[in-house]
């Protein structure tokens, strides 16, 4: 009797709306008909830009550029430009990228009259100024098993559905131990231990985003230009919170891109990442009026490691610098003919 009741209560009634996660979650294979995507893009008179933010990515940058250029520019004209926005690599990243004929920018050279920051968020924000597309696709430049599905998978929902304005990637994330060995599971620790619990506590709808910290996402310029960009680790969290608060869940979708092989990070590095994510999250939800923090928040991540028999403190200052919505920058409005 009781189990029958439970089943009944769990069964969705026909007039109940379809849950967001069912309605807005896709698999990249649903968008593998590239001719169809190109046709949709043409009909909607849209242009699409791909941004690759880099810092010392000489081992992977060429492969990303070549595959995207070959498959999504030469074979199927889905994307109109590829730009590398570099934070000041000391290896051959910029030289190699230039040799494959894409636009390469040093982040410091874009909007040079503003204070200069170093970080992925800075590159993504400045990319909005130099890229021309109506849709901007952001892809990390350290993906070893890069495939063009990483881009067309993200573009698919934006072209197929008029209500979707922002798309986030998720995947299985094997960790690359060295050039030959790949550990088949793991990754996403900061997601499961930090960000999902925080979402569950304060913005439960966002917990449906399977990998909120994934570095691959795409969106319409008119959305991206209206949100602020933290410089460091918090960019993904902040973007989700801002879009959710301003436009709601229904403008977002997520796409399963299958396996993504990335570099492994040690626990200390993940700790710093978690610090940056929490720092951004707490400041953001306070700004949005969801909580009130009645104490000072410090900007130093303090870690300890055992060296030569004694504990050494590692003090990493992490200042939560943030760029305002780029629509507020006069140079941007002028360059993009925005009133």
């Amino acid at each position: 009797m009781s189990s029958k009741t439970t089943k009944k209560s769990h069964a969705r009634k026909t007039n109940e709306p379809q849950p967001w996660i069912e309605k807005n979650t896709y698999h990249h294979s649903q968008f593998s008909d590239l001719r169809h995507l190109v046709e949709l893009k043409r009909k909607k008179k849209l242009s699409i830009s791909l941004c690759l933010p880099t810092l010392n990515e000489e081992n992977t940058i060429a492969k990303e550029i070549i595959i995207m250029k070959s498959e999504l520019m030469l074979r199927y004209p889905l994307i109109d430009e590829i730009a590398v926005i570099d934070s000041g690599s000391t290896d051959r990243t910029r030289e190699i990228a230039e040799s494959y004929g894409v636009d390469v920018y040093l982040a410091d050279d874009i909007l040079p009259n503003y204070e200069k920051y170093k970080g992925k968020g800075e590159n993504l924000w400045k990319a909005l100024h130099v890229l021309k597309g109506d849709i901007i696709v952001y892809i990390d430049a350290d993906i070893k098993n890069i495939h063009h599905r990483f881009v067309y998978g993200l573009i698919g929902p934006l072209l197929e559905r008029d209500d979707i304005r922002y798309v986030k990637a998720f995947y299985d994330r094997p960790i690359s131990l060295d050039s030959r060995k790949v550990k088949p599971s793991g990754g996403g620790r900061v997601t499961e231990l930090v960000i999902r619990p925080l979402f569950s506590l304060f913005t439960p709808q966002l917990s449906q985003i399977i990998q909120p910290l994934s570095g691959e996402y795409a969106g319409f310029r008119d959305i991206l230009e209206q949100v602020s960009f933290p410089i460091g680790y918090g960019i993904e969290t902040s973007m989700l919170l801002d879009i959710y608060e301003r436009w709601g869940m229904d403008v977002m979708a997520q796409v399963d891109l299958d396996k993504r092989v990335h570099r492994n990070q040690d626990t200390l590095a993940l700790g710093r990442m978690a610090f940056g994510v929490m720092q951004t999250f707490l400041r953001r939800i306070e700004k949005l009026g969801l909580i009130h923090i009645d104490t000072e928040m410090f900007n130093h991540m303090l870690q300890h490691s055992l060296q030569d028999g004694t504990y050494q403190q590692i003090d990493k200052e992490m200042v939560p610098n943030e760029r305002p919505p780029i629509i507020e920058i006069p140079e941007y409005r002028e360059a993009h003919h925005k009133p």
Partner: protein
Amino acid sequence: MRTRRKLEPILAELPGLLDTIRNQRERIITNTILIGQIPPISINTKEDEVGSINTNLRAKALLERMSELGVDECSTDQAGNPIGVIKGTGRSQQAIVIAAHMDTVYHFDQEIHLSIDDNTISGPGIIDNSISLGVLLSIPEILQETGATFSRDIILLGLNESLGDYNLRGIREFLANWKHPIEAGIILEGGELGRLNYCSRSRTRLEITCQIPNKTGWENKYGNNAILILNEIINQILEIQLPQRPFTQIILGKIRGGIKHGDRALSGSLGLQIESGDDKMVQSISRRIETIGDSIAHEYLVDVKIHEISGVHAAKLEYHHPLVKTAVQTLEALGIPPRVHSSESELSIFLNQGVPAITLGLSHGEDYHTVDAKVEIEPLYKGVAQVLSIIHAIEKGVLDEQ
């Protein structure tokens, strides 16, 4: 002279062809990555409720990619070779086969990651022979880009099960079962650019194993030693007199034996290859080595087995064969000195079936059979140009003068 006349206009087009190929750089590299990162292994996949099928992952990927690239007919044959046919415009059923083997000497059974910089692609198997598969896949689009049309079919063939014990099964099965006449075969190898093989010597590979019967633990210290037995076999093989004409040699290529430093080896194996311009000479030496094995087995009371793991027969085109002349003149026009030597591989099977064939190298490589294998991108443009130029020459009828 007539070959030269037919060839001249084609060679005059080489600079333009090189530019077209250079403009296809991203496509060639992408094709190479997408196929080269897939392990050269077969897995058993369920076909329906009752049956399963052994599928080579590279063959599957090659076929899917050829289909995506718009190759007219894509299928596999009974050996699992992926075959793509660019249909000719004429009625002739003649075809040109361009083939590349899919297996790699440096074996890997999981997806690997090839890396690229501005002039090299690196990673396991890249030079032998993933780069050739990438070029094979790029041919349809390059031909399309040049606007070239052909009256005969061009068959793009990935070869399954070529190396080692497989003894070139892929090409043997393909040639045994292909129903239509084949005008010529071009075999692609990653390296080295300038390589031109048009003769194949007779070759046999033997695996000699030695097992010491072991009845009690004490014999581990004081009985026969498989390494010494193999040493004796080697000494007797080295006493075999080899003729200078036909040039004949025995290559001792692999040896393995024993388990730990302090125990005599109870088992060991020796891998060797006999090569000669004459099949009978190889057979005669092979029999001689069998006799050495038998006599040592009786003399030392050990178990010696000799197993022939693969072999090919001698065959060759003459230097003045129009296909060879075309290849030499094309390489010279590209400023590449031809490096002529024999190749005891797929070439032998083509030639023994009476199909004129050559093997060509595509680029410069390093660390061929290691995890850090490399291929250079820049020489590749000439490597691809030579192949396309030779196809055009065949289309213009250079082989009619055989």
